[in-house]
């Protein structure tokens, strides 16, 4: 057990900190949440700055420890959230880095790193949510292309994406886990219709994506044909294991802000509220330590997080909701019901955390069956 970072890691941290202190004050104002082109430009612009400063590829080029330092320092400094780059940087990119060919890495990773291209995730379908392996979107081989027909749903950022990590069924005869393939689909291909869906927060964050005989080159398949389920597991383990890591630091910042706000508005006098905040302090600190433990395991597994990611994802999603419930109490009735309050909007979006990236029920199944070895069955 060791919490000390190597000297070169500390140096990396110090340089990054210095760069953030210099860079963050000059950033442009954040765009309106309804302004999609503005959001895309803003998120890509931030990634471009990271790239120019040498931090663009930290999510898959650097050691897990450096990536952790990167996430910790950027969040601590209050740097912009990955936003539209979430899929590209945090799970499609790492999947391509781990599973793609050299040509595929050369084609898709640099534009993500430079802040040129946005990715989205086309996994879920109307009939395949928790039961992802029930997906029906068909891909039929025709020469050097797959011809893809079907429907995806809940596709975040589909409106502004250049690429989609797409799960398709390439062999309808095979056992359901064996006939799936993982494709990179260009979002400007003919036959794609994106219909935005409003979330309960207000803006349209995700969309339905209709695919009507969309041609996707066979060369865009990552992993072997019909072996997409295994590749999917790699993507999901990044999504659950590492994609939310930086947010824990952000939550801890928010918690400090809640305490100071409560002190300022007098709600701090309520011991029940104080204790709630105190317990959340312990929870977020422990989550950060859990991340640090998981990093060691990921390093040994060649960078891919294991089922420990489900442990983290499950607890984190619960505690994040508790955080914003506490925020509502700090804000008081007027603030808690005022949709223009940032913490109130964040409270609304926290509701998605126990659903997206696999619901809490599914995470519990994974933990019980894969870690504890309990028998399958519902």
């Amino acid at each position, binding site marked *: *057990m*060791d*919490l*000390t*970072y190597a000297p070169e890691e*500390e140096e990396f*941290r110090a340089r990054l900190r210095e760069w953030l202190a210099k860079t963050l004050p000059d950033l442009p104002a954040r765009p309106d949440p309804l302004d999609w082109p503005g959001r895309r430009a803003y998120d890509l612009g931030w990634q471009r700055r990271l790239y120019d400063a040498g931090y663009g590829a930290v999510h898959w080029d650097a050691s897990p*420890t450096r990536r952790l330092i990167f996430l*910790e320092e950027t969040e*601590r400094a209050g740097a912009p959230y990955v936003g539209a780059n979430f899929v590209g940087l945090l799970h499609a990119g790492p999947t391509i880095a781990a599973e793609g060919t050299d040509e595929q890495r050369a084609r898709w990773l640099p534009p993500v790193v430079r802040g040129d291209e946005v990715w989205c995730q086309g996994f879920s379908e109307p009939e395949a949510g928790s039961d992802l392996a029930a997906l029906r979107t068909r891909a039929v081989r025709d020469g050097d292309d797959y011809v893809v027909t079907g429907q995806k749903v809940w596709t975040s950022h589909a409106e502004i994406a250049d690429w989609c990590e797409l799960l398709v069924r390439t062999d309808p005869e095979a056992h359901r886990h064996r006939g799936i393939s993982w494709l990179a689909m260009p979002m400007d291909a003919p036959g794609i219709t994106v219909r935005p869906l409003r979330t309960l927060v207000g803006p349209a964050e995700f969309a339905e994506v209709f695919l009507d005989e969309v041609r996707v080159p066979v060369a865009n398949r990552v992993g072997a044909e019909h072996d997409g389920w295994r590749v999917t597991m790699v993507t999901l383990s990044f999504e659950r294991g590492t994609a939310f890591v930086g947010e*824990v*630091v952000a939550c*801890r*910042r*928010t*918690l*400090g*802000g809640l*305490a*100071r706000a409560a*002190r300022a508005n007098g709600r701090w006098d309520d*011991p029940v509220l*104080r*204790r*709630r*905040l*105190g*317990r959340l*302090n*312990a*929870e*977020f*600190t*422990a*989550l*950060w*330590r*859990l991340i*640090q*433990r998981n990093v*060691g*395991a990921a*390093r040994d597994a060649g960078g891919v997080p294991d089922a420990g990611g489900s*442990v983290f994802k*499950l*607890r984190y999603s619960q505690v994040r909701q508790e955080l914003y419930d506490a925020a509502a109490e700090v804000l008081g009735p007027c603030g808690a019901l005022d949709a223009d309050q940032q913490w109130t909007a964040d409270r609304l979006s926290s509701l998605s955390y126990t659903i997206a990236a696999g619901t809490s*029920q599914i*995470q*519990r*199944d994974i*933990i*019980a069956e894969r*870690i*504890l*070895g*309990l*028998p*399958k*069955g*519902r």
Partner: protein
Amino acid sequence: MDLRPTADQQALQAGTRELLTRRFGRDRLREAVEAPALDRALWRELGAAGFFALRLPEADGGVGLGLPDAVLVFEEAGRALLPGPLVAGQLLAGVVPGVATGERVAGLCDAGRGGECLWEHPGDCDELILLEGGDPGDPCTPCTPRAPRAPRAPCDPGERGDLGGADGSEAAGSEADGLVESGPASGARGRAFWNAPDWPVLEPVRSIDPLTPLARVTSYPRSAPRSLDVPRLRREAALLTAALQLGSAARTVEMAVQHARSREQFGVRIGSFQAVKHLCAEMLIRVEIARSAVYAASLTERSLPVVGAKVLADEAAVRNARDCLQVHGGTGFTWEADVHLHLKRAWCRVEQWQSGGKAEEALAEALLADDVGV
């Protein structure tokens, strides 16, 4: 940076488990339930194995290991429900002669909590040390006018409870608190009194835990204060108690899973029912969260992470024992099953060294001071 135990530490933990399985297996556990007097031969054997002298320098006959190693060993002790004043033995090994080898047994009491001073294994202790003040769960005591002579506030900037190393130097070792030399300054630094065990006035308590005989210390003469670092003793006592809780919590998950994999109802193993499966998954989450907090606190040796670790480990031990009982059904409610031993011991430990509300208040207070959110 790697929070996982090293190969050496894993070997230490495995060796401890092996020793405890051999010397304190299920039969011995159940014998101890019926006759809770301390097994002095086992105690000496633990001493010989280095259980108490773990952190004493090798030059003094110790093993020369650190707090993280002690935490791993205590996790095993908690797992095995090993009875006895274990925390006192670990903390007083270099203080009270004979404790390191297991020849003599010392007790350590959290006094000064207004008549709520509990002493575990009172009949087995040859010595007793009582601590007053210097509570890490109350980091701002010295900031109040009641303790004007406090040499240095323990709620200094080092106590921010930083997340992941605000200054990258949090693993720099212990805080090197000044010792309490003597004199009446109670409060921040606390004081320690050394008593022969027959000195305090005791009130018997029929302990809820058959493995932990208890007495209430109603009054005790204040001997000349001993030269001990009280805040540090309290911090380490809380951390080692948390490690015991962690071990118990991990064991009750195993017990629940074992039962869920073998017991059949409705023609299938009950572990295939999601209602059971999900209970077990939540139990594991509590263990992993508590383990992360306990291991990290053993490295930072700061009081706030210890407080957080104790809160989470208490919750893991108590709630896991309850869920384990639920998974066992009627069997879980019997005296013969070991589930109640875990729950009762967990309840005892919750009351030791940090109480939930006070600990949470300390964690909340730290939020106001910290710079993570600025």
